């Protein structure tokens, strides 16, 4: 008697426990938690606010409007947890750790900039989260993806950008459009020095003559002295590895000085819609890093769609790639069919994905679908190099100011 009673109670408890166990995950799977730590304040806020954060917002809205991410036959809406890293890498690392251990998010989207992503790489790896480091651009990418398989790079290597620049100029020179005289200026930090060093070697090898070659300090507010000397050297090409405020200042000052090289190539910021907005017809023919194939239906849709939701157009370098990387993440989760981060990392690295920038298939953790050089032609910043890439537009001559 006692035994049966005990057995009955035991069975009841077991059944209840099973119900609880079955009930708990069913509730947790109503949504998929995605977190990010991004610079909303501090010096990185400007860059993160142009390229990264708007794309996170557009993508989350798109996924949720479509019902959510399809995980094992069930559509899960995205629940967002966001932290401001205040442009401080220690804050960012703390926030990423908190997202994983306290908020227990299912996936973490990466921070903005090369430095932040490299600083985040060890912690992403330790926690076992995929890191789609879209805004990181480093020549060490291959070593790093070998060491940390969860880490992927999307913007191409700096060496690929340099190859694209040299290839573009060499073709123009061969076609008799420009002579061999190039003036190069670069901001005096890691970005400017790395790219200008590699480009200097590449241009010399291709037989170009660097008639002016100087760097200027980060934050320089007057470009006139540099440009006057560059102008005096009478080059056919002005090549600047500059940051957005300098990119705007170099363009503006060259216009004022009447400095009219046949090729005008400026750095970060050229691909911003704001550049076109500020210089309007003056932007025609100006080259810069990045670009997109605006004839792709995906890109056409994306630019319009971004404008509708955010209120302005996206930049034409890292923005479309950021959105594409999120599409890859979503497709990888859906193919795996559950929140299994190790399997998702494997799928991101080995799968082939259809995105707004076309087909994406990573090689050794590196996205190969990139543009090295773009040029403003009419309303869009088209990719012109690598010249052999499908959709590459021929370079047009830049009209005088």
């Amino acid at each position: 008697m006692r035994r049966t009673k005990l057995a009955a109670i035991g069975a009841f408890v077991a059944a209840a426990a099973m119900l609880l166990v079955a009930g708990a995950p069913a509730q947790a799977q109503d949504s998929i938690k995605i977190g990010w730590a991004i610079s909303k304040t501090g010096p990185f806020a400007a860059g993160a606010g142009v390229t990264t954060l708007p794309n996170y917002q557009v993508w989350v809205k798109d996924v949720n409007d479509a019902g959510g991410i399809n995980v094992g036959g069930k559509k899960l809406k995205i629940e967002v947890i966001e932290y401001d890293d205040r442009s401080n890498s220690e804050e960012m690392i703390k926030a990423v750790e908190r997202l994983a251990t306290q908020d227990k998010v299912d996936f973490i989207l990466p921070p903005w900039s090369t430095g932040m992503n490299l600083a985040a790489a060890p912690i992403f790896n330790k926690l076992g989260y995929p890191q789609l480091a879209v805004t990181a651009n480093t020549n060490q990418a291959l070593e790093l993806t070998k060491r940390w398989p969860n880490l992927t790079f999307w913007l191409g290597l700096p060496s690929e950008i340099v190859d694209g620049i040299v290839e573009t100029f060499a073709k123009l020179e061969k076609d008799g459009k420009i002579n061999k005289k190039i003036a190069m200026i670069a901001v005096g930090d890691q970005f400017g020095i790395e790219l200008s060093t590699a480009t200097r070697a590449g241009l010399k090898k291709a037989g170009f003559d660097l008639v002016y070659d100087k760097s200027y300090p980060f934050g320089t507010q007057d470009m006139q002295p540099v440009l006057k000397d560059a102008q005096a050297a009478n080059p056919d090409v002005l090549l600047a590895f500059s940051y957005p405020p300098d990119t705007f200042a170099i363009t503006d000052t060259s216009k004022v000085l009447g400095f009219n090289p046949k090729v005008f190539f400026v750095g970060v910021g050229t691909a911003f819609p704001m550049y076109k907005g500020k210089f309007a017809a003056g932007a025609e023919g100006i080259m810069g890093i990045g670009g997109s194939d605006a004839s792709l239906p995906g890109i056409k849709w994306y630019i319009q769609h971004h404008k509708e939701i955010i209120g302005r157009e996206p930049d034409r370098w890292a923005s479309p790639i950021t959105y594409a990387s999120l599409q890859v993440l979503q497709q990888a989760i859906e193919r795996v069919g559950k929140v299994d981060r190790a399997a998702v990392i494997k799928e991101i690295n080995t799968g082939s994905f259809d995105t707004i920038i076309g087909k994406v298939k990573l090689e050794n953790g590196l996205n190969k679908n990139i543009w090295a050089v773009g040029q403003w032609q009419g309303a869009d910043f088209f990719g012109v190099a690598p010249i052999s890439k499908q959709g590459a537009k021929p370079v047009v001559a830049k009209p005088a100011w």
Partner: protein
Amino acid sequence: MTVKALLMTLALDIVLSGLVLGGMYALIALGLTLQYGIARIMNLSYGECLVAAAFAALYLYSGMAVNPIIGLLAVVPASFAANWLLYQIVLMPLVRRARNQGMLEVDSILGTFGILFVIQGLMLLTFGGSLQSYSYLSVPVHILGTTLALNRILALLFAVVIGGVLYVFLTRTRYGTALRAIAVNPDAARLSGIDIHAASALAFAAGGAIVGAGGVLISMFLTFSAAMGVVFTMKALIVVIMGGVGNMLGALIAGLLLGISETAVARLVDPGLTIAVTYALFLSVLLWRPTGLFGRPAR
């Protein structure tokens, strides 16, 4: 051209371009020298006020099609009023409880450090964190064989006019003398019947009006963002300390000197050394005259 003529042209080019750059430095420093030198408030939120004025100019220009020069008529009085209120509401309690100059300096640094984040946060909320840039009067002007941008020349002219007018006001008028008296010795000034609270509030607000004008003018040619204020505070601080705290003419001359030396080094030596020359000049002035070019020795 002969070598001599070529050198003359280069020298003239460097001096004129340097004056224009220095005019901008002086313009952003003049307001701080009033606020720090006379109202004795070391305003760390100075750069944020400058950027706020730049945003106001951008809003008037792109949102309401008001050109920045006309925009000055709205931004300058608004900035005057805002800074007067800031002094009366936030800084007055610090002024009243400060027992001496040193204590006020420390308290005002801490207080305005907080205000910095409030202003920055408000700008982030309203305009977002991205870079802003527009062009106005970005047209070439040819002076003595040198090409300069009209908007930058305008900033230089404003700096010279504001600096000159304030200098005359402070040295030649009765009220200006009263303000200088506060700067030299607030306790003695009070004993001579000067209402130091009202006068300091006015000096602080006038500094705010100048920073408003500076923000509007530089927005015509510099790219700015809500996070960029500290860059301007630093530059203004260097110019103010170099020129001698509270001295209008000193700020003007220190600004122009910095502009010319930066341009000369960029043209003649290497553009990479412009920051180095700024600090070298700053350091040597302080070694030679610890109170700045036109500063008085400490009592």
